[in-house]
């Protein structure tokens, strides 16, 4: 589904952040992306989300070389990917329900067709009683779950989560992990970027470890 071949990434004239990175993300797979702080996890996720282009190497997404994708095609490609940003990026003037429904709304779907789906998903992430709440009154963990629900609402083929447990306590972290596993069982490929070893030890999943700009894959 996603294939990186000898990918390198450099910011300006600095040394390469990523060097000769090659890997594949198969359909329905589950993997952790880890490494020390500043190792390039977020950069790699941004490459996966097409918000960056590599300085060398090739990336194929859903069977297409991203170098050939036109600017106007990007929104359609991005609709196949769900992203949970490290800083959530929720819209503070919209309720929890509306934040989660946003991807469907921008795709022109009628609210009557997705109202129950959004409510069900919010129930699933444990926020069924916070439909009307605005993000500023939610806790870090609740915001994280809203961001996850927004990423999942249109059933993406791949979910990218950047430090999804960075702002929550261990109990909530386990709960979110169960959420990702459940999602993976339902057919979505999941990439979780984290430096939380405790979290990774709870699941027997492939580990992609970034160190000194190189990527090693275990499992």
């Amino acid at each position, binding site marked *: 589904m996603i294939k990186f071949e000898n990918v390198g990434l450099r910011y300006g004239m600095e040394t390469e952040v990523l060097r000769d990175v090659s890997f594949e993300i198969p359909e329905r797979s589950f993997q952790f992306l880890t490494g020390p702080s500043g190792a390039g996890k977020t950069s790699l996720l941004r490459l996966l989300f097409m918000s960056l282009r590599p300085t060398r190497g090739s990336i194929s997404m859903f069977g297409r070389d991203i170098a050939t994708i036109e600017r106007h095609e990007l929104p359609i490609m991005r609709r196949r990917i769900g992203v949970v940003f490290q800083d959530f990026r929720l819209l503070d003037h919209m309720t929890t329900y509306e934040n989660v429904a946003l991807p469907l709304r921008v795709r022109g779907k009628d*609210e009557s067709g997705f109202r129950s789906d959004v409510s069900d998903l919010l129930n699933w992430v444990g926020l069924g009683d916070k439909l009307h709440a605005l993000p500023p009154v939610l806790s870090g963990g609740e915001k994280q779950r809203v961001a996850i629900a927004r990423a999942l609402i249109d059933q993406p083929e791949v979910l990218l989560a950047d430090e999804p447990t960075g702002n929550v306590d261990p109990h909530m972290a386990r709960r979110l992990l169960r959420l990702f596993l459940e999602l993976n069982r339902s057919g979505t490929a999941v990439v979780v970027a984290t430096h939380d070893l405790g979290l990774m030890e709870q699941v027997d999943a492939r580990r992609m470890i970034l160190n000194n700009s190189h990527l090693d894959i275990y499992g």
Partner: protein
Amino acid sequence: MADTPVNAEAEHSVKPTPIVPPSNIAGQALSLVIAIMSFLACLTVGAVLMIDKSASSWQSQISREATVQIRPARDFDIETALVEAQAIAASFDGVTDARIIGLSQTATLLEPWLGKDINLSELPVPRLVVIRIDERNPPDFKAIGTAINEAIPNATLDDHRAWVDRLVSMANTTTYVGVAILLLVLTALVLTVVFATRGALASNHIIIEVLHFVGARANFIAGQFQRRFFWIGLRGALIGGGAAIAMFLIFQFWAQRNLTTAEGVQVAVLFGDFSIGMGIFIGTFFVIALVAALTTITARLTVVRTIYEIDEQRADPSRQSY
């Protein structure tokens, strides 16, 4: 899974929150800036129209008349000469009326200099015949002057040409200065609206980014913002334009109430009658439409540019902050 509250669903189906918030501090500040600039622009439009109207009026009034001046002399019957000059002038094509200024009127004209109750017959005061001219078919002033001068050597014809030329020049200069000020104000209006709109959009950057990353097309995002900013621009422009019209109405009311006072007459002579003509309404409408269109177009272009920059950063990782 827990049951979804029924009320919540019902409420969501009624009124979804706009993607771009209807009003925030930046939007209110933008509205205020637009209102102030629209007000100033509408005032300038009104002032320029008024100056142009007054200048045309001065020009027209002075070029509508010519004057025959007859100087007194020893053993000269000035009354007969006045009647003769009146007859000669009236005989020319393009002269609609020739009127002798009587002694009492002459005394009134000279009153500011010579005072009341003077006996003009004791003074060598020139007398006047005022000739009214058909502006569309003016007479041959040279021929009138020659004919009058041949018949009455003491008479001269003043066609006010020197005054008209000076006034035309002054009126045109005044109008050009007014138009130049209007252009400056409109330029300031355009720049203020553009920069204020961009400033207001900066606080909404996260909305553009989130919409972009959840797969919204550029047209959809731009559409959301241009609708919101159109209303912000229109509201500000209507407030500014409305305030300017109100100010003109207040001046008009004041001028009409004070028409008979010395101040009112002086103001009317200098600035016209302060009447609200169609020109001011059209000018105000033009300013309001311009501001609303500018705000909308700027919002659209800024959003499209922001999206473009996000995608440009994608193509050029060196523009990223790590």
